């Protein structure tokens, strides 16, 4: 397409923003206020531009759209961008969450504001890049590049054990990705290209598939994360500042889910089919085990972090069923989790900003002081436990439906996760919100400010809207999903 290179614009607007922000030199309150406004407006602008994708997106076209392709390193490696029904929503999810993160950091970040905001803008560039890349080298660059700003965000602006957590996070994911890099190098050597579109129709031999699949899987498994490689996530979440948790849960985990759909099952269908029972087992273990762990947590953020692992278990279950419902369910579950878990971490942030503790036992009876907060929190808790009518239900239902058609054993165990989710979610809510307000330091609590309401409102609307009328979303996803499923079927036959 010779029109405006809209994806490049989306990727590089934050970079331009970084340059603007570097021009603001002083270090007083006024200038940090200006920095925050600048960052907010830049990311908001990016969000508006990304919405234009929705209007010019061709719903009937299952192929990549808004394609840009320029020669880059060698003939086989190019700067190749494009999005289809699978990736477009992740781009918009990213551009939506970043301004929300910046808004959420307005009060809570007290020092090195400029560096903090620059990290976020850089992170946005990398995240959008991941979902738009149609070249493995480019993808890898963006995928790994995102680690650096995240490493800084947790390591500098995090809580007490931030250094341990951020190294754990960084090294864990980096170690996982080394194998992916090796696989990409192998792919380039044996096929002469790293172009995703070309590779999607390339047939690897079965042995190649098995090895390469494992290499990609190692990287994504750590990132999504799957049991037993999940232990970095609770630590990272607990120590990260609120906005860091939001982005981590909202977008970074989804990169891996996206990678599974695009690369693992796209490139290596035979291997994926071979390994599917293995994935199912790990997912089901994750769903049940991490739900049980969530049940006994005493730290709000840890609880939500463990529940994230369980929710991601549904995603991997759905993807590896190779059915339209399963993959669509997985994608919707990721989008929904991106909204809901982000919102839940924001909910924790609200009370953390006021009382500076994440310990559940320190709270209780907040509803009498904070009705709006309690209402918002309730909506997200209900979405998290998958109540019909919220976004959490749609994805979970489709995933469970698809896994039931494939294998009833796994379906039964996965469905018990729904019961457990209700247990830990409502139990968390009850301990924080309900009961009599008797603890002394809670009497100073005040309800959501206008800024916080602005943060929560779009998330509430989306949660309920997707829950009641997911058709627009499914319309976007369906053609590309069907194409992927058909391709797999063709390759497998």
């Amino acid at each position, binding site marked *: 397409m010779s029109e405006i290179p809209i994806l490049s614009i989306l990727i590089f607007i934050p970079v331009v923003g970084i340059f603007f922000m570097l021009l603001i030199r002083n270090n007083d309150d006024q200038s940090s206020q200006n920095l925050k406004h600048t960052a907010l407006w830049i990311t908001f602008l990016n969000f508006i531009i990304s919405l234009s994708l929705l209007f010019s997106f061709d719903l009937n076209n299952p192929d990549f759209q808004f394609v840009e392709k320029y020669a880059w390193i060698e003939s086989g490696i190019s700067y190749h961008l494009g999005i289809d029904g699978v990736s477009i929503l992740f781009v918009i999810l990213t551009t939506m969450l970043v301004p929300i993160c910046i808004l959420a950091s307005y009060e809570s970040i007290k020092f090195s504001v400029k560096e903090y905001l620059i990290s976020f803008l850089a992170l946005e560039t990398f995240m959008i890049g991941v979902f738009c890349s149609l070249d493995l080298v480019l993808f890898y660059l963006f995928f790994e590049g995102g680690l650096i700003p995240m490493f800084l965000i947790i390591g500098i602006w995090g809580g007490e054990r931030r250094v341990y957590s951020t190294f*754990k996070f960084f*090294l*864990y994911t980096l170690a996982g990705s080394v194998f992916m890099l090796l696989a990409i190098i192998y792919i380039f050597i044996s096929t002469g290209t790293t172009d995703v579109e070309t590779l999607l129709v390339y047939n690897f031999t079965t042995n190649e598939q098995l090895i390469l699949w494992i290499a990609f899987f190692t990287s994504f498994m750590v990132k999504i994360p799957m049991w*037993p*490689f999940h*232990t*970095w996530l609770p630590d990272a979440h607990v120590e990260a500042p609120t906005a860091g948790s939001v982005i981590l849960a909202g977008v970074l985990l989804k990169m891996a889910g996206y990678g599974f759909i695009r690369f693992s099952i796209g490139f290596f269908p035979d291997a994926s089919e071979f390994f599917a029972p293995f994935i199912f087992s790990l997912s089901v273990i994750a769903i049940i*085990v991490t739900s*049980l*762990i*969530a*049940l*006994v*947590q005493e730290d709000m953020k840890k609880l939500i972090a463990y529940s994230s692992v369980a929710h991601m278990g549904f995603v991997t279950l759905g993807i590896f069923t190779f*059915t*339209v*419902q399963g993959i*669509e*369910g997985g994608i919707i579950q990721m989008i929904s989790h991106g909204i809901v878990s982000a919102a839940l971490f924001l909910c924790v942030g609200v009370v953390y900003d006021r009382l500076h503790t994440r310990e559940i036992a320190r709270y209780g*009876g907040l*509803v009498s002081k904070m*009705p*709006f907060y309690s*209402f918002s929190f309730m909506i997200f808790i*209900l979405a998290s436990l998958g*109540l*019909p*009518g919220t976004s959490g239900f*749609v994805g979970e*239902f*489709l995933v*469970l*439906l698809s896994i*039931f*058609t494939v294998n*009833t*054993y796994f*379906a*039964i165990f996965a*469905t*018990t996760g*729904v*019961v*457990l989710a*209700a*247990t830990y979610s*409502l*139990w968390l809510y*009850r301990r924080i*919100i*309900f*009961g*009599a307000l008797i603890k002394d330091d809670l009497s100073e609590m005040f309800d959501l400010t206008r800024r916080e309401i602005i943060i929560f409102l779009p998330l509430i609307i989306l949660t309920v809207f997707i829950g*009641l*009328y*997911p*058709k627009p979303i*499914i319309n976007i996803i*369906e053609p590309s999903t*069907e194409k992927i499923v058909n391709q797999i079927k063709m390759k497998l036959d």
Partner: protein
Amino acid sequence: MAHSIILLPLIGFLISCSLSFFKSNKFIDRAAEIITSLFITITAIFSFYIFIDNIGDPSFVSIKLFNWISSGSFNADWSIYLDTATRVMLVVITSVSALVHIYSVGYMSHDDSKPRFMGYLSLFTFAMLMLVTADNFLQLFFGWEGVGLASYLLIGFWYKKPTANAAAIKAFIVNRIGDFGLALGIFTIFIVFGSIEYQTVFNNVTSFKNVNFNFLGIELHALTLICIFLFIGAMGKSAQLFLHTWLPDAMEGPTPVSALIHAATMVTAGVFLVVRCSPLFDLAPVALDFVVLIGASTAFFAATVGLVQNDIKRVIAYSTCSQLGYMFVAAGLGAYGAAMFHLFTHAFFKALLFLGAGSVIHAVHEEQDMRKMGGISNFVPITQLMMIIGTISLMGFPFTSGYYSKDAIIETAYLSNSNFADYAYILLTVGVVMTSFYSWRLMFLVFNGKTRMAEEDLSKVHESSSVMLIPLIILAIGALFFGFLFKNYFIGYYSDVFWNGSIVVHHEDHHSIPLLIYYLPAILGIAGFIIAWFMYIRKSDMAKNIAELNKPLYNFLLNKWYFDELYNSIFVKPAMAIGQIFWKFIDGLIIDGYGPNGIAALVSRISIKAKQVQSGFIYHYAFAILIGLSIIITFIIFRF
């Protein structure tokens, strides 16, 4: 009109809950009460109109509103599906709901968050209406979980009470276990039938009569499996044995809630589900046997527990549990019409009993323990009269509503050839005596005998205001006459026309019943009354003596057969313990210990060792160079 039946409660809910965010004052409270009550009353009038309009010549309407989830070949719409079964439910839901809304204006008059309460009631009504007007299983599931949510919110309405919160969570989670079954049922239906729309499923059911489904590696009769899954859902919602534990605890909620949700409507959703799916169940005899077995056992179990409870609301709750068992027995024996009929009459007399109990609780200053009541009949004559009407209807006194519907069920059990028909007949018949006994025990303990209240409390006992009494009177009319008025439609002569194919109707010959069997339930009911009268009025210390003599049995019943303790030790505690183990031991010690932390420790140990090599002394380095050199030389020499 059909649209407004659904929409008005929703709008009422939205308005009222928005009002609840404002600072409470008289105007806002009144506005919320009037708006919600008015909207539901209009809905009730519409529902009655539609019901009566279609009673002789039923129509069938199915409206698709808009698409909900469609993915691949899966499709579910938001819809309004109006057949006779739905219309019956509409009448039950909206009329009881309207009366409960009005009653709540009086009952909750001292509460400081009225808009929230009225809003939740409307939310519940909306969800329940969505449940019954679904044209597919997914919208049913929406309503199913939606009523669960409303029930959770209303049980925990007094959120400062820890017991209320615990009960609310328990209700939601036990229901979720049932929903788990329902969800599996829906999945199986989709796989077997390729659709989850009622019409597609029910119209094609005969062609899937002999289909098998591979479940957990076992080839099972698909319809049986589906029906058992659906029934597990029904067991959760309708508080049947093993999944019943939430219902008595749910009595922590305000009494109007108990009347609406835990007596008349939500708990009957399970019965509705079975009846709605009667085309499926009818072809799955094993599943039907299971329904009879569970229904009859629950009817018996709950009645035994009801005999000894001291909390006025818990007695009625166990009674509800037991009566739901009767309905399931009817459905399980193929008498779906009788199940719906008992559902219909039960809604009125049980709501009446609950609201009456609320009136009593109000009169005696929020006391629920019957051991602290007694002798108040002179102070609350209308309430007592209304509760007597509810009680005689419940015990099946001739010509009241309960008489027609309950007798129909017992007769069906007598006539049926089903595997568990005899079992059911015996338990239900024994249940009749117990029902009558515990109902009259309640009445005598509350109203008669010598008072056990403090002197100054007794003097303040007063009759409720008319806003609470009028709903009681209206319900009493239903409890007395609806059985007689509608029996020919539900189970009698007109039943084929009335149901118009919306449920499966079988005809039995009730004329072959011996006269003794025919009159037995009524006789037993009266016997139960006499026993209760003897034990609690005539010789008022007799009950205590019997309890003393049979201490183990009494405790067994009083502690509800120890289900809560059992579940606590086999589910709740192990779940917590496993969570702890996986968190602290597996995650903390094993995964982190050998994974990231272990590797990190290893790396630092190696680097400490490596550090020692760099001593800084020249002769150490010279020595190392010498050794290396000699190794290289050796290597070169031997190589060549």
